[in-house]
């Protein structure tokens, strides 16, 4: 995809040309997504901002040794995941170094009602429906729908197969579609009622 190519090219300019401008653009392009991802692990946006900043500091410091990185997006997500889990382990002193206990509040997404495709009410219902899904399913849905990751990228990041990604995403899409369908049929009922009255 075009966006991926752009990120790839920014990353290469950072690594091979020490281009600080490209580095800043890379940060702007990815920081919000990475902060949300980190915040879901450490349960704090404030902490997540620092973690993602540290990830980018490391990127700058190690930029000339990153020729082995073939997918910058995955590299940055994995770095963010690792640093977030480490931070959590340090803070809580006991280790649960996995993504099983993520804070889904930080990840929840919904259609933007301002686009006019769905009402604010339906958007809320969709958000609620997503929250009723299993943790991993919600995470996968966000990473693909909102963060624009590919099946393969999600698979590497979460250590699962692309088949699992496909299956989990289908579950999420089905659940959300049912909410929209219900709303559409409601609308039809409403319009009939209006005609009747």
């Amino acid at each position, binding site marked *: 995809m075009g966006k991926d190519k752009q990120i790839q090219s920014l990353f290469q300019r950072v690594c091979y040309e020490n281009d600080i401008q490209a580095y800043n653009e890379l940060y702007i392009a990815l*920081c919000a997504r990475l902060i949300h991802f980190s915040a879901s692990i450490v349960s704090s946006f404030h902490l997540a901002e620092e973690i993602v900043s540290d990830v980018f500091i490391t990127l700058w410091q190690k930029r000339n040794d990153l020729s082995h990185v073939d997918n910058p997006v995955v590299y940055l997500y994995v770095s963010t995941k690792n640093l977030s889990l480490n931070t959590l382990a340090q803070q809580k002193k006991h280790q649960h170094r996995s993504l099983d206990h993520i804070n889904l*509040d930080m990840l929840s997404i*919904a259609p933007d009602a301002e686009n006019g495709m769905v009402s604010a009410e339906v958007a809320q219902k969709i958000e609620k429906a997503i929250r009723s899904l299993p943790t991993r399913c919600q995470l996968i849905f966000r990473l693909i729908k909102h963060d624009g990751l590919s099946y393969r990228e999600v698979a590497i990041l979460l250590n699962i197969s692309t088949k699992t990604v496909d299956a989990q995403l289908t579950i999420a899409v089905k659940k959300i579609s049912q909410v929209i369908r219900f709303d559409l049929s409601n609308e039809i009922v409403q319009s009939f009622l209006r005609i009747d009255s």
Partner: protein
Amino acid sequence: MDQENLYTLLAREMAGELSKEEATALQQLLLQDPNAAHIREVFAQNWKSAKNSYSHAQVEQLLEKHQLRLQQAIEVREPVPATTAPRKIWKLYAGIAASILVLVTMGMYFFHSKPTKAPVPLAQLVTSKRTRSQIILPDGSRVWLNAGSKLNYPEHFEPHKPREVTLEGEAFFVVTGDAERPFHVHTKTFHVHVLGTSFNVRAYPTEDSAVTSLVQGAVEVVMNNDSRQVVALRPNEKLTVPVNAAMQQTTSAAPTPVPQKSKLALVQDSIFTETAWVQNKLAFKHLKLEKVAAMLEQWYGIEIDFRDDNKRNFYFTGVFERESLEQVLNALENTRSFTWEKDSTGKIWIK
């Protein structure tokens, strides 16, 4: 059944994982199911985070905050010249350079050219005859310092002013691009003006010429004795300036030796003799044995002399990486043009 399939296809389309055949199949399903077209539209929209959806302005603020933290991190870490990092980088060289001696002196200096304003604390990186080192400057630029060299640089570069460093010896620079603050390398013979690029400067006080070799980007070389004399270099070009030419006063009537532009010498693949040392390689192309001997002296920190002066003028080409001094000498000796021996003091004699 069709509905299950529909959700899978919608999911794949959203993820950008839909094949051509699947796209056709999806079109078919959409025709049969008018509501599905609406659902598809909803998924095609941009969704937003329910919590903390960062606006453009907020992202800009995040970047500013991050830049401050980055600056602090670099300032804390960088002026301490790596004693561990170079070890890794130069590990191929470990056999010879068993101990890496990096001398660092920090002090308060002024740049000659600067009007006396706030003093900029200066740091200095010095390599001994047998060691090389690497450093990251406060702006993120990388410098590899060859043996027997000295680099002066400020502990931090001032905003909106050229970044100035002074070099005696040889260094390879990979300069961070910054249009507002051009990068200047000062030597006794010339100075080099850079925007963002990688290049090599060789200006040992003991040698009769000083050389700038450009690998990438663009630089301008300004002669110290005549600031109107500016030479622009393009990638893979080098400029050799006879030291006398630059030192000579303009009052002299004698024709001064002119700076010479030439191509970098490609020995093999992408190895240029001028910059091979950065990759820990010793490379020379069609070079007189006396010059090769001088390189070996510097590389291995030993002394070489000639019993038979005729041998000085034989030419050699070669690239060496991990070889010991003995291996290098034996390889050259294999051409049967000379023999060598080591005396009791460790000095090498060529005859």
